[in-house]
């Protein structure tokens, strides 16, 4: 894609005001139930419908997929504008875009590697949220070792027949399509050969989803079973046998090593300021928790970390400052942000004294038990999409040039 002209600072300011006004007018009312912090936490039909409607509204206003090609429903605009939208959404604390897999992974990959027909068929509905996408990489026996996928796709005429199980399917219940890695040939010299990448339909015979209960006690993922499910050959993305190469592209989008995503908030951001607020409001032995110098020191450390992280993510836009490792910051983002969130939630719980034991559902739980649940939910991001340990391997190997273990 050719990058449109960069907007001037004045244009950006004007646009920011426009977006701010639009959000002020159109932000959805706060629901009575707890809004999920990310698409992985959507557990009820009510939550899903609310979020889908919000994405549709944002898209209709022209604030989603602003950099994507006009012919497939995008805005054809400069990425600086999309960034303004995303940052204003974060500032206004509005809900996130529910079709994250479509907007952040599947969409960019289809735009990069798909045929014109595929783009025309899938991209507009990714943006509108009409068709939700999910991801089918992990299998029960292969958590981190994605290339070891055992699911099979057997070609029969114009169709492929799928057999196997995918796990950790977010929004499995709501998705229309799944990006899916399956083995079309078992005779290859290594596990990386013989994989193919599909844009598989979810609502066809012989595809069933089974909900998984999370450690929080709520539902959020499904296990997806394919038992002789037949899909059209046109659902193949790239060539047969090139699945691993396609998957690497998707992972690059997932790990933030490449731009091109549709924009919009992907999850409810968690800020140290919220925990500082907790520390001001909660009392410990009759005094505000923040009166304790050790609490203040921990908060300060979190503030420093948060600043370092946020400034780093912004710094990637200044090439002169990227230094000798241009991919370092994009690749470390997932690792650092998710681990930070886990520790920050645990800390917010630790301020609550004896009441820290109260959970979601207890009328006296501080902040409805959000921090307790937030701590447990935080593992979905330190584990999902490649555990933190795998992330460190990848960074060590690809960015620092250290050998594989």
């Amino acid at each position, binding site marked *: 894609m050719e990058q449109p002209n960069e907007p001037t600072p004045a244009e950006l300011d004007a646009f920011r005001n426009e977006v701010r006004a639009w959000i002020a007018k159109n932000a959805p009312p706060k629901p009575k139930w707890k809004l999920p912090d990310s698409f992985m936490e959507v557990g009820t039909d009510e939550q899903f419908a609310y979020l889908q409607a919000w994405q549709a509204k944002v898209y209709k206003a022209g604030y989603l997929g602003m950099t994507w090609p006009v012919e497939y429903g995008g805005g054809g605009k400069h990425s600086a504008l999309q960034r303004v939208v995303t940052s204003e959404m974060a500032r206004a604390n509005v809900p996130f875009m529910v079709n994250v897999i479509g907007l952040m992974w599947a969409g960019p990959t289809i735009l990069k590697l798909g045929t014109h027909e595929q783009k025309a068929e899938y991209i507009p509905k990714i943006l509108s949220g009409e068709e939700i996408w999910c991801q089918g990489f992990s299998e029960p026996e292969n958590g981190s070792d994605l290339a070891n996928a055992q699911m099979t796709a057997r070609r029969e005429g114009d169709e492929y027949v799928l057999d196997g199980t995918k796990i950790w399917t977010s929004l499995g219940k709501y998705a229309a399509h799944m990006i899916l890695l399956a083995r079309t040939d078992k005779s290859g010299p290594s596990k990386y050969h013989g994989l193919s990448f599909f844009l598989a339909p979810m609502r066809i015979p012989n595809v069933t989803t089974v909900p998984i209960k999370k450690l929080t006690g709520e539902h959020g993922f499904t296990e997806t079973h394919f038992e002789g499910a037949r899909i059209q050959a046109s659902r193949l993305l790239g060539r047969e046998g090139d699945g691993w190469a396609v998957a690497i592209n998707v992972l690059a989008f997932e790990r933030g090593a490449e731009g091109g995503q549709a924009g919009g908030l992907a999850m409810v951001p968690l800020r140290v300021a919220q925990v500082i607020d907790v520390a001001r409001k909660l009392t410990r032995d009759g005094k505000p928790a923040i009166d304790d110098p050790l609490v203040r020191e921990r908060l300060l450390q979190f503030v420093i970390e948060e600043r370092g992280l946020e400034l780093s993510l912004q710094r990637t836009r200044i090439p002169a400052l990227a230094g000798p490792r241009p991919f370092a910051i994009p690749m470390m983002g997932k690792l650092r942000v998710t681990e930070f969130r886990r520790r920050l939630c645990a800390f917010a719980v630790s301020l*609550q004294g004896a009441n820290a034991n109260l959970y979601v559902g*207890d009328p006296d739980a501080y902040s409805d038990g959000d921090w307790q649940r937030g701590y*447990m939910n935080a593992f979905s991001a330190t584990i999902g999409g490649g555990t933190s340990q795998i992330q460190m391997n990848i960074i060590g190997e690809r960015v620092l040039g250290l050998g594989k273990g």
Partner: protein
Amino acid sequence: MQAHDEAQTAPIVWNDEAELLAQNVSTFMAQHSSFEAVRKYMATPTGFDAQRYAQIAELGWLGAALPASYGGADLSVSALTGVVEAMGQRLYGSPFTATTLAAQVILLAGTEAQRSQLLPKLANGEAHAALALYEPHGAYDLEQIAAKAERTASGFVLHGDKAAVLDGQHADFVVIAARSGNDFVLLLAPKSALQGRIRSETLVDETRRSARISLEGLTLPIDAKLAGGDARAALEHAERVAWLLTAADAAGGAEGAMQLTLDYLRTRKQFGKPIGSYQALKHTMVEIMCLIEEGRSLLYRAATVFDQAGAEREISLRMAKAQLSETYAFAADRGIQFHGGMGFTYECHAQLFLRRAQHDLHAFGDALHHRRHLRESLFQI
């Protein structure tokens, strides 16, 4: 440091009776508190298996730390360390700790009549009891107790609320700590008097039960008062018992969480190797093991000096409580992470440890609280 020199002289003393008891409990728990049993009973309202609990009573464990004259085994409370450690390792849920706390308070503050009426029933499992100490503000210091017992002609009328009352919802009677003027007073409230005043708390830890009690306007007769000893001393003793037993639960729980994770790391393969062979996981497990061993040493030290008055007792107990509950939380946290996707499911047992660790972390003084007191004791500032 004074404390340190004492530690040098007689660091850890171990008692054969306590050891035998711990071994028996450990064997019992391995048999009767499987993960399946834990999940079965945590889904029930009371949270425990009444039949097994009766068996425990028969075996004499409920009365282990009570005098023989009340049907007990005459051991020190410190002998319960190994008992609760073994229970913690198997995530065993029961009113054992709650009843022990109430019994200890009655033992210290009750009149002879109160003791002989109540303690034998607690020792033989006929009755359950609970201690209502904390309040909705969540503070741990006894000085923060705000509930009031107003003396009237016929007895007492109470004001305020109690929270985090372990197993209060199924106790036959609750010992309520309240203020009466400048002093503390301990009042016995039978289940019948508390009707409509108790609600179960929803806890992160599903293997435990605790309750809130609304005291406002509750009237109790004059003989509800534990009148045989100093209420403050009894409460301070109860706190120490709670620290010791929570530290013991944490020691056992950390071990259980570690074992569960090690089993997974030894068998689960990724990239063709058992994942426990990767240093990121292996070294973290070694760190956890070291913390558990060091924490257990702190625990046994605290048990050793439990019956000796003095600063060293309080220091040892607080250190054990703070350190082991954080070790447990760390072991359980890494347990989730190292189980990968499985760890994120409710079905995986790692979450049971994570949740129970959260309880041990925040019950009876969290690390921030105990460390503040420790800094004051050790550095006199």
